[in-house]
């Protein structure tokens, strides 16, 4: 028994990480399916319905196709970087999950792979370096469409990162912590219920943050890096086979991560609605584990809802022009979010002054 215990202690973290990575992979394929289904319904079609029950296995079929396709590298491409770029995209997209608090354990701690003190900054840092994948992919392909796509994307991501960071700061000012677990717990007030979620306390910040997160995922209406009509496929024009598949995978993992990030910051993360009213009952009856599980489910539901909204937006809103994109980022979102920081700071100071917090 003791040996088993020792073995378990040795492998539990790797197992969790392994499970989480696979979770991301499966989620990504489900999202691909969801995207095709939602878009089909929006366009009054049926979408994939042949492979598996109601077409559920379609994404797996796609993956197998991609794996077995030939991997073509353009003659003048920079070989190593050409392979590095998609790998980088996937690694960065998946590593973000490590610092996300998935639920609160019965003992009141964060259920996370690594509960680091500055986890918000870790996530921001990860998203900020994911731009390398796109940029390098564009450059290493040695094709002008790819290069233009890569350049567009780096300009876009840098521009929107600023406004996103500023919106995140307004949340930090409220929570007075850079730790995502504390940020979520800060939204937990028994008497106000869901009204204490940041989306209601800080609506301007939520809108700016959501728009920026959408832009960071490079999806429509912000999909200029891969605008088909202008750039063929954008930065992944010259990719084929599983390398293309990795870009595809990274896009959907990023979509999921954006959802996770938004719901952690603004939708109360894993918090159940009005959970202050009944969380005590679960803990008293020894059902703390069940409660934690419910929180995870609730978190996933929120993330799924946001992912659905993103898909919905993609299939309903037309793409921006490049100047509109830059105007929106620099002339509207950034000033608004900076003004929002001041507003929130003022409110926090006033509340602290009168002891309302």
């Amino acid at each position, binding site marked *: 028994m003791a040996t088993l215990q020792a073995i378990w202690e040795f492998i539990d973290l790797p197992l969790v990480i392994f499970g989480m990575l696979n979770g991301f992979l499966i989620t990504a394929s489900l999202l691909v399916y969801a995207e095709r289904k939602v878009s089909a319904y929006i366009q009054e079609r049926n979408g994939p319905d042949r492979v598996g029950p109601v077409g559920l296995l379609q994404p797996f079929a796609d993956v197998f196709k991609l794996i077995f396709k030939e991997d073509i590298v353009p003659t003048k491409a920079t070989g190593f970087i050409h392979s590095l770029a998609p790998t980088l995209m996937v690694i960065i997209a998946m590593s973000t999950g490590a610092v996300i608090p998935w639920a609160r354990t019965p003992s009141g701690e964060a259920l996370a792979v690594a509960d*680091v003190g500055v986890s918000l900054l870790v996530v921001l840092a990860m998203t900020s*370096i994911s*731009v390398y994948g796109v*940029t390098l992919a564009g450059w290493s392909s040695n094709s002008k469409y790819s290069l233009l796509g890569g350049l567009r994307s*780096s300009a876009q991501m*840098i521009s929107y990162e600023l406004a996103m960071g500023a919106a995140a700061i307004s949340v930090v000012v409220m929570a007075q912590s850079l730790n995502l677990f504390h940020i979520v717990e800060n939204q937990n007030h028994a008497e106000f219920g869901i009204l204490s979620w940041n989306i209601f306390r800080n609506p301007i910040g939520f809108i700016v943050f959501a728009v920026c997160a959408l832009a960071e995922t490079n999806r429509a209406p912000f999909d200029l890096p891969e605008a088909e009509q202008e750039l063929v496929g954008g930065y992944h024009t010259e990719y084929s086979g599983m390398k293309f598949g990795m870009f595809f995978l990274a896009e959907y993992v990023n979509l999921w991560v954006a959802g996770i990030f938004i719901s952690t910051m603004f939708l109360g993360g894993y918090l159940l609605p009005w959970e202050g009213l009944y969380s005590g009952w679960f803990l008293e009856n020894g059902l703390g584990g069940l409660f934690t599980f419910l929180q995870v489910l609730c978190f996933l539901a929120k993330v799924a809802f946001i992912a659905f909204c993103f898909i919905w937006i993609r299939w309903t809103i037309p793409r921006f022009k490049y100047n509109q994109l830059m105007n929106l980022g620099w002339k509207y979102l950034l000033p608004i979010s900076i003004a929002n920081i001041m507003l929130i700071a003022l409110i926090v100071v006033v509340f602290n002054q009168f002891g309302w917090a």
Partner: protein
Amino acid sequence: MLETFLFFLFAIVAVVGALGMLIARNPVSSALWMIMTLFSIACLYITLNAEFIGVIQVLVYAGAIMVLFLFVIMLLNLESMPSLGDLDWRKVVAFALGIAVLAQLLVVISLKLDVMPEPVAIAEAADATSATNIGIALLTEHSFSLEIIGVLLLAATVGAVMLAKKRFV
């Protein structure tokens, strides 16, 4: 034990990255090597319990500044540098050995002169570099410098626009 191992791992990676940046003949590869160096330096900060500074290092240097570097290099479409030619390996080895001897001498001399700073306790180091303490120091003790730096950045931006935009010719 683990700390020592990680320190040497990241230190070696940082040095290799720096050398790679110098040796690489392609500007984009140089930039990538430099990103590697910046990353391992960020990891070094984290092993020194300076979590906040480490993450900020990634966010600012790797995430913002080097992206702009890459951006500019790609836009300029720089030619590769001429290749280094045949390296004389005897010189390389001699150089490395010379550096090693110099480093040893420096360590011995600095130990003798007692100029090496004393290590700080882990808790103290982590406390001094926490986001809270840095923020408080910036907004109280250094509030004046902070404001002036804000003005400085504005002036730099205005200056860059003036030097680049057509209207000012």
